[in-house]
């Protein structure tokens, strides 16, 4: 995380590289926006922007948790399955009212997070494998609880999914609030400092007396809860619970958003602003391809290329 202050005489190429790593994602968003303004019909309308924002909200919320996990040099592959689990729990307990149901869904996400965190922090399993196991198990659990698609008929949830304040949908407001909260936690709290220190060097953090295990568990719990929030919001928007397909490949989108946003996979650094821009970039890319009638297969290929490109560009920084 130590910011290298480049001295005046640094090579232009190195500076250019650093700039592109820092601000490349924002430039990408601007380029795509400009392209769409010029070439895409009906792009510059408030309605379209609202749709885009609503679509990006769940991905963004999941990506916030993912950014924390990646900041500790880990990763959380279980997020998509946690979304499915939260939608199952939500629809099961909706009889007790939307608030109780939402609470139970979030507790479910937190429990998966505790399991992930315990495996990573106390048992010492690699994060990829620990969260892989929970990814399979949580999806299965979601399907056991709710075997098939079920409509969610609840005025409260419907309002959450489609309501707005001054034209800004609730979903977008919640996503923005969570992004600010996580950004504050990373930058201004002890927890954030400890998280980054652990990501930088776990042995050093332990020697410095930081509560490494506790922080790791909290990170995975945060990731689980955020994924559960995304699951609740997605359910509210779709007005249906679909544990089979909700959140599939979500881990991939979230990792892409984080990595494209300039957070290195080697840990020790978390860029929340970049993550937000990364999620927006992926969304815009998909929209651009869809609006120009390119099939979904192209979107997937394009996303794959963007991921590899972003990781490749971030490579130099990793070596330092």
């Amino acid at each position: 995380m130590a910011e290298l202050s480049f001295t005046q005489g640094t090579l232009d190429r190195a500076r250019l590289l650093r700039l592109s790593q820092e601000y490349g994602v924002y430039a990408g968003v601007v380029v795509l926006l400009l392209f769409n303004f010029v070439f895409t019909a009906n792009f510059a309308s408030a309605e379209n922007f609202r749709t885009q924002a609503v679509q990006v909200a769940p991905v963004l919320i999941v990506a916030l948790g993912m950014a924390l996990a990646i900041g500790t040099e880990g990763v959380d592959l279980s997020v998509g399955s946690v979304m499915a689990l939260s939608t199952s729990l939500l629809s099961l307990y909706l009889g007790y009212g939307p608030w109780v149901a939402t609470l139970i869904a979030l507790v479910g996400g937190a429990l998966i997070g505790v399991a992930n965190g315990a495996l990573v922090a106390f048992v010492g399993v690699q994060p990829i494998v620990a969260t892989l196991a929970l990814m399979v198990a949580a999806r299965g659990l979601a399907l056991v609880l709710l075997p098939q698609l079920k409509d969610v008929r609840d005025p409260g949830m419907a309002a959450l999914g489609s309501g707005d304040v001054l034209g800004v949908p609730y979903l977008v407001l919640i996503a923005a609030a969570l992004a600010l909260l996580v950004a504050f936690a990373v930058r201004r709290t002890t927890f954030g400092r400890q998280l980054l220190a652990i990501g930088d060097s776990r042995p050093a953090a332990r020697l410095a007396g930081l509560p490494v295990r506790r922080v790791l568990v909290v990170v995975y719990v945060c990731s689980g809860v955020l994924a559960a929030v995304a699951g609740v919001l997605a359910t509210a928007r779709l007005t249906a619970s679909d544990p089979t397909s909700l959140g599939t490949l979500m881990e991939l989108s979230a990792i892409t958003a984080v990595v494209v946003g300039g957070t290195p996979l080697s840990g020790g650094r978390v860029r929340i602003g970049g993550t937000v821009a990364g999620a927006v970039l992926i969304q815009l890319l998909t929209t651009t391809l869809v609006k120009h009638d390119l099939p979904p297969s192209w979107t997937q290929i394009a996303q794959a290329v963007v991921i590899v490109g972003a990781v490749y560009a971030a490579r130099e920084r990793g070596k330092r």
Partner: protein
Amino acid sequence: MTTGTEETVVRAETAAVSGDDPPGARRSERLSAVAQQHGALVTLAVVVVAASLGFDTFLTGDNLENMALSSAFLAVVALGMTFVIVTGGIDLSVGSLFALGGVLAAWGSQYGTVVALLLPLVVCGLVGLVNGLLIARSGLAPFIVTLASMLGARGVLLALTDEGSRTYLVDKGSFFADLGQGAPLGIGVPVWITVALFVLGAVVLRRTRFGQYVYAVGGNEDAAALMGAPVARTKVGVYTLSGVCAGLAGALNAAWLVSGVTILGSGMELEAISAVVIGGSLLTGGFGYLSGTLVGVALLKVIQNVINQIGSLDSAYQQVVSGAFLAVVVIAQTWLGRRQRVL
């Protein structure tokens, strides 16, 4: 050439065989090593005995044949995965490549068996090669590179099949279909091929220079490089091998199903990784063997079969059980590994 890991293997083997170590402290270490190496086999035996006592239909020829056939495809994928995991890497693209291989084989079968077999091997091998180059030469993290190619390969598959709406069929009378459907001596061709590949793979891994490099790179990359092992080339080799294996498994599967089904293979990477890990290979690299992987595949498939036989249980329970099982195995491995290191 001796690596730290090989020493562990040798030590564990001699300890298990000769047993001339002083009792006490050494014994628990020995037990840990034995448990790590043969735990999966013992579990498999217990599950098979329990299942054959519990269900009349378990130990029938038909059921065993079905299990062997459905294991064969996963086993071939897990074969490549074992090489990758022994180098300390991971390959998440195999599920997509399995599906892509199947579609390419089914499409190619109209031009003859050679095309139907070669096309998936070449294309999936190329994807593996690109994975390997990005990982070995550019130093990118294996999981992110293979995650991207998992997405990319699925995209290519969709592009080939009119966004997944078109299924290519294999001519049932063709020689290629016989590769999947034929059963000399009552055992399906895919099973024969799988057995042959595992024998070949085991010889390559244990008895050739390349195999020793694979262990060396996984044991300690820097040490391997200092010893003069071609680290980058070895890594490119294992990822290419993994791609080829996934493509071959997909082609065989297409021959078996006589069609290139587009929706296959999702989640297969997890199954393959689980099988390798359950078989005793360490995800940290440097330790692992193919016989264990074969046992891991068999164990996964037997458990699935048992859950299916219970009938009243939803197939979703399979996932819960597989996930929990993987977690338990990894915890046990980490614990056993730590014991060995501490003592």
